Structures are given as structure tokens and as C-alpha cells.
């Protein structure tokens, strides 16, 4: 069976309906578990209790980027293979990505207050996230403004494509423009000071939770979009008759 067949709305509704309970259960367990576990971790010797923020901040930041990549893939599938559900999935994912970006920004800003002594700094990492938020907002606004769905799907697809290139370009431009004070990736192995296990495992759990939460939400929202499309289709047909 080909993966493309999932794009058939009926099949998608059936399959997603079967997956959904598991996704929801997993999302609830892992998100709540990871976040609560994270909240209960002991204080860091340098950052004090603020280290607990990492269990929201990092998963949200990670998802914020990954969701855009998923939208790009879905848009490409729509533009190339014309699978209607993938266009709707991209539409459904955008608000989730925007909220993730917002969470990363908000937790980061709140964290920055005690750590850097400022709510906001035009650090490249932070600035790139702000720009990512702008791209999300533009994408969402375009979907909302175009009345004809077929056009909206195509236009947002093209915008997502061009936007991805420019989001990347902006990232380099911003790096060129200002040097940062944000920490590097401390999860990666090559960095000397690897995050200790007490923080690492709840972080993994919370990351998995955010991932599952995204899966569950994107399924629900895609199902919503499919139902709206079906409703609109029925009404359009009624009117044409």
C-alpha cells in the first residue's frame, strides 16, 4: 500500500480516527509527564530553579522549526502530487507552529530576565525565532484571506516555498548582523559540557510529549479542515444544482 493513499480524504478520516486516541493518550502522558518531571528536577548550581524552563523552552523551540519543515514537505506534496489532504495538513499545522514559536519566545524572554538581565536581546537565535513567527503569521493570514480554497492552497504552497528560502537567508543575515549570547546546543555530543542525566531524561520525555502533542493536534485540525471542506463542497454542489 502506498503512502499516497492516505491522502484520500475518506481513508485519511478512517486512519486518523483510528490513530487519534493513541496519539492523544501518548501526548497527554508524555507532555504532562515530561513537564511535571521537569518541574520537579533539582535546581542547577548556576541557573537555580530557572533550569526547569528548559523542559518547555527546548521542546517548543524544536517543534517550532520542525513544524515549518513539515509544512514545507506537505506543501511540496500538494504542489507536486496534488494530494488535497496534504494541503489541508499544512494549513492545520501552521497555528500549532505559531504557538510553539510563541512558547519558545515567551519562555526564552522570561528566562532571559534573570539570566541575561534583559527580557529581550537581538541575539541571532532569538531574532531568527521572531522572524520565524512572522513567516507563520504571514502564512496563516494568507490562508485566511483567500476565499477560493484551490487558489489558497496553491498560493500558500508557493509562499511556503519562497518563505522557507528566505527564512534560511534571514538566519544567515541575522548571524552576520549580530553576535549572540544564547547558549549552543548542549544536547549534542560534541559539546564538552553535556547536560547531566537528571535534566536529559525529562527533557527527552517532554520533547517526545511535544512531538506527540503536535501529531495529535495536527490530526484533529486536519480532520476539522476536511470536514469544513466537505461541508463547503456539499453546499457548493447544492447551489450549482
Amino acid at each position, binding site marked *: 500500500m502506498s503512502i499516497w493513499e492516505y491522502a484520500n480524504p475518506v481513508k485519511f478520516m478512517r486512519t486518523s480516527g483510528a490513530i487519534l486516541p493513541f496519539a492523544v493518550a501518548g501526548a497527554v502522558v508524555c507532555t504532562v509527564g515530561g513537564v511535571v518531571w521537569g518541574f520537579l528536577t533539582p535546581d542547577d548550581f548556576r541557573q537555580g530553579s530557572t533550569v526547569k524552563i528548559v523542559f518547555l523552552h527546548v521542546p517548543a523551540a524544536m517543534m517550532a522549526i520542525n513544524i515549518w519543515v513539515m509544512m514545507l514537505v506537505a506543501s511540496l506534496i500538494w504542489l507536486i502530487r496534488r494530494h488535497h489532504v496534504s494541503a489541508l495538513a499544512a494549513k492545520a499545522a501552521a497555528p500549532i507552529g505559531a504557538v510553539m514559536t510563541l512558547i519558545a519566545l515567551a519562555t526564552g524572554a522570561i528566562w532571559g530576565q534573570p539570566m541575561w538581565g534583559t*527580557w*529581550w536581546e537581538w541575539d541571532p537565535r532569538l*531574532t531568527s525565532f*521572531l522572524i520565524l*513567527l*512572522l513567516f507563520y*503569521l504571514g502564512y496563516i*493570514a494568507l490562508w485566511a*484571506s483567500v476565499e477560493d480554497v484551490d487558489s489558497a492552497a496553491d498560493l500558500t504552497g508557493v509562499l511556503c516555498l519562497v518563505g522557507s528560502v528566505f527564512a534560511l537567508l534571514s538566519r544567515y543575515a541575522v548571524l552576520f*548582523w549580530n553576535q549572540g549570547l544564547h547558549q549552543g546546543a548542549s544536547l549534542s555530543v560534541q559539546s564538552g559540557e553535556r547536560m547531566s542525566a537528571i535534566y536529559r531524561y525529562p527533557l527527552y520525555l517532554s520533547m517526545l510529549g511535544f512531538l506527540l502533542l503536535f501529531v495529535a493536534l495536527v490530526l484533529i485540525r486536519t480532520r476539522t479542515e476536511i470536514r469544513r471542506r466537505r461541508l463547503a463542497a456539499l453546499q457548493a454542489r447544492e447551489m450549482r444544482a
Partner: protein
Amino acid sequence: MLALLTRDLRLATRAGGGFGLGVAFFLILCTLVPFGVGADTSALRPIAPGILWLGALLACLLSLDRIFALDHEDGSLDLLATAPLPLEGTVAIKALAHWITTGLPLIAAAPLFGLLLHLPAEAMPWLVISLLIGTPALSMLGAFGAAITVGLRRGGLLLSLLVLPLYIPTLIFGTELIRRAVASGDPTTPLVFLAGITAGVVALIPFAAAAALRVNLR
């Protein structure tokens, strides 16, 4: 009157992004400024009040054409003009709706964007106060500009040119209010002027706007 207000607000929320677009544009402007002028606090802090006011003003400006243009296109404006509402009241209500959908969100978001531009904490309340007093004048003057350009194609740039000069006094006193409040703690003079301008504009401009609208309707 109330019915018109609720209708306009409902339309703004239904038609996708009525509330959000202005704030989003404001956010973009505040993001772009540091790219232009540099990111260090010392560069941003002194210009922050001005930039925030300019951003609010431009966001307001770009949404002006919606005040009458849509109602003109679909014929509602004709019907409103023959309804038992004085056209002056209609203008005032529409400006109010514009202020609620554009001005209020901007004011609510301004402190947040103030953070981005390193506006000092003690200036925040003054930023909000100055916007709260000043933006109604922006919406009302904008309604006047929109009434003048309502029938024209590509009113956009022309509308900006007509309206921006009218915005200058408000802008000056608005930023001056913040600056003086932070510098000396006594913003009375600009505050009085700002409030005076807004009061005068809100009281008188509806008549001018309604007159312009009548000309464009006939």
C-alpha cells in the same frame, strides 16, 4: 448606532485577521528597525518611543482604506446614508470601530514591542497612556482621509499622503509626552496638547468626513 458598531466589530473578527493584521504589521516594523539602526541598547533606547509611535501610526494608516471602501463597494454605504442615522454618527462609529480593531490591539501590544526595542520600564506606562490618548485622533483623521478617497482606485498611497501630514501634531506630542515623562517626570504640557488635539479632532472631524462622504456618494 450600537448595532453598527457591533456589526463592524463582528465583520472584523469574521473576515479573517481584522484584529491581528495591524498588530502583525506593527511587530514586523519593530523587528525591522533594529536591522536598520543596529541592535545595541544604546542605539535603540532613545529612539524607541518614536519608533513605537511611528509603527502604530503606520499600522493604523495601512488599515484605513477598510473604513469605508468595503461598505462602498457592496452598496452598504448608500443604504447607511439613507438610514435614520446621521452620517456624522456613522462616521464616528466607523472610526470608533477602526480604533477598537486596530488601535486597541496596538496599544495592548505596544508594551511587548517596547520590550523588543528596550524601552525603559518607567516609560512603559507613559507609552500606553500616550497611545491611549493619541490613537483615537489617528483613527478619526484616518476616517476623514478614507472618506475623501473612498471612490478612488488605488487610494492607498494618496490616502497616506493626505493623512500623514495630519498625523504630525499627534505624533510630536505623543513622543514628547513619553520623553518628558521619562526625563523630568512632568509630561503635563504635551499631555494637555495631545488630549486637546484628540478632543478637537473627535468633536469636529466627523462633520468634515461626513461632508466628504456625501460628495463621494452622490
